[in-house]
């Protein structure tokens, strides 16, 4: 009796897990393996695939565009996420204070985050426009430049411009994450600091900063994933930019797979990107002092 009842319960449990597990199995786990398999092949439509061995990988390491995309992705992370985190910490500290209307500020600064990336990309594309863009208009009005700066068309400006848009979108999100972390710091610690006579900068460095380590780590991870997956914005704003200057790994993968139909090669790049992502995350974890920067969190 007990045996069959346990069996039934077990079966029921597995049944409950089945749908979600199926989705992940089909669309996360299998693709990893499939990518690996594909990366060793040369994809031909209507013909069986050729086995290439490591040819795709060799080609990848020799591909200048691949390294450019790799480099750009790192730049996105360093330029975009790091600056965003620093800005977000500053803003969060300001919003955390008991000033009137801080919820309004909080909502307004957060607002760009959930908006559709395509819409944001189009909006900013027009803001950056050389002739009719608002930014150039203001620059011209202030007399800083004579003619419009071709932000998205010049090799030097394209990447920073796209990074700025990305910062614009994500800083509100980081701000909220850090704000949550700030608000969980017990006041008692600050009061102890006052008793000990610490200066404001010491207070920040020794009390605040370590205790929001966990939030900063979260921002790091989100930032890493964001810079790897910024497909929408780049595709719409520059599509790789003047000569690959804004190309990141994802957009290059997309081009190879669906425009050039080199699916085998694209799979190789995908795997490289994935490994790189894991490495960066592991590095971020190490830098936050391990354990995902966890502090005495109430959980």
């Amino acid at each position, binding site marked *: 009796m007990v045996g069959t009842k346990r069996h039934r319960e077990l079966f029921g449990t597995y049944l409950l897990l089945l749908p979600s597990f199926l989705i992940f199995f089909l669309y996360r786990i299998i693709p990893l393996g499939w990518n690996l398999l594909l990366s060793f092949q040369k994809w031909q439509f209507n013909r069986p695939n050729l086995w290439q061995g490591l040819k795709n990988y060799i080609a990848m390491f020799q591909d200048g565009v691949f390294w450019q995309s790799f480099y750009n992705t790192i730049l996105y992370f360093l330029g975009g996420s790091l600056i965003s985190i620093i800005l977000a910490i500053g803003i969060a500290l300001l919003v955390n204070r008991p000033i009137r209307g801080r919820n309004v500020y909080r909502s307004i600064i957060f607002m760009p985050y*959930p908006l559709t990336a395509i819409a944001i990309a189009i909006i900013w594309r027009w803001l950056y426009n050389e002739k009719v863009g608002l930014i150039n208009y203001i620059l011209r009005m202030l007399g800083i430049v004579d003619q419009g700066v071709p932000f998205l068309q010049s090799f030097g400006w394209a990447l920073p411009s796209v990074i700025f848009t990305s910062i614009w979108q994500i800083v509100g999100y980081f701000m909220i994450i850090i704000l949550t972390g700030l608000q969980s710091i017990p006041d008692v610690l600050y009061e102890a600091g006052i008793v000990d006579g610490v200066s404001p900068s010491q207070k920040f460095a020794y009390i605040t900063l370590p205790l929001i380590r966990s939030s900063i780590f*979260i921002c790091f991870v989100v930032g890493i994933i964001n810079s790897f997956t910024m497909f929408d914005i780049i595709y*719409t704003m520059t599509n790789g930019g003047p000569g690959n200057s804004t190309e990141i790994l994802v957009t290059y993968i997309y081009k190879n797979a*669906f425009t050039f139909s080199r699916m085998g090669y694209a799979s190789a790049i995908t795997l490289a990107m994935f490994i790189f992502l894991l490495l960066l995350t592991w590095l971020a974890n190490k830098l936050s002092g391990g354990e995902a920067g966890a502090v005495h969190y109430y959980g």
Partner: protein
Amino acid sequence: MVSRRTPKIVAHFILFLISLIMIVPLYWVFKTSLTGENLLLYPPSLIPKNPSIFYFVDVYYAIPFARFFFNSAVVSAVVVLFNIVFNSMAAFALRREFPGKKLIILIYLSCMMIPFHATIIPAFLLTKSFGLLNSHFGLAFPLLSTIICIFIFKGSFDAIPTSLIDAARIDGMRNWKMIYKIFLPLSKPAIATNVILPFIWSWNNFLWPLIIIQKQEMQTLPLGLSRFNSLYEQATGPLYAYCLMVVAPILLIFFLSQKNFISSLISGAVKG
């Protein structure tokens, strides 16, 4: 609160400036969609002169807006519904002890590290072999369940006392009824998160529709916006109107439920 070097006025000033930077682009879009002005010809004005909704009308007919909206809405609705169902089921199951539980949790956690963008090629081939290209369900399929949302439900479910479950079991309640009648009603915030997060992800989804939709009439709103952008690049008025029409639902939900909205998006990150 402990006072800092910077007085309140300075804090207000900085925050105001930053809020301005956040709002100006959005206000600009709003204004241009009403007046379609061209900075090359006229200096910009703060308030829209001669506002009209004609650009919105143009966009409505130039693309089949109703159709695209319908596509996006259907896919999002399906995604939200299945997410709630599947995720609550999984979270409920994870509450028990059973052989292989640690393994399953490990697998789920590691799936979180695999971003969607690393799976696009096989996902495309898979969906193609299912014959689900150009279909609503094909669009929804990869998003029907997300690990983050499962753990959000789990957090909420774990807080429900075991005594409640035992009492229900004694009454002979089956699993499904238990989830529906006990767990879900007690987890309203988790449900809200499970509605908001999947909705935003599916409404804003661009890469996946770009990959699997080739038929004009099955496009979703963001995909349509992108195609519109490449066709009608010069027409700012209609383009901006389209942008507004795409983000309007999200803005609406945002204004209606700010606190819930923000906390949902945060728990999405924190649980990860």
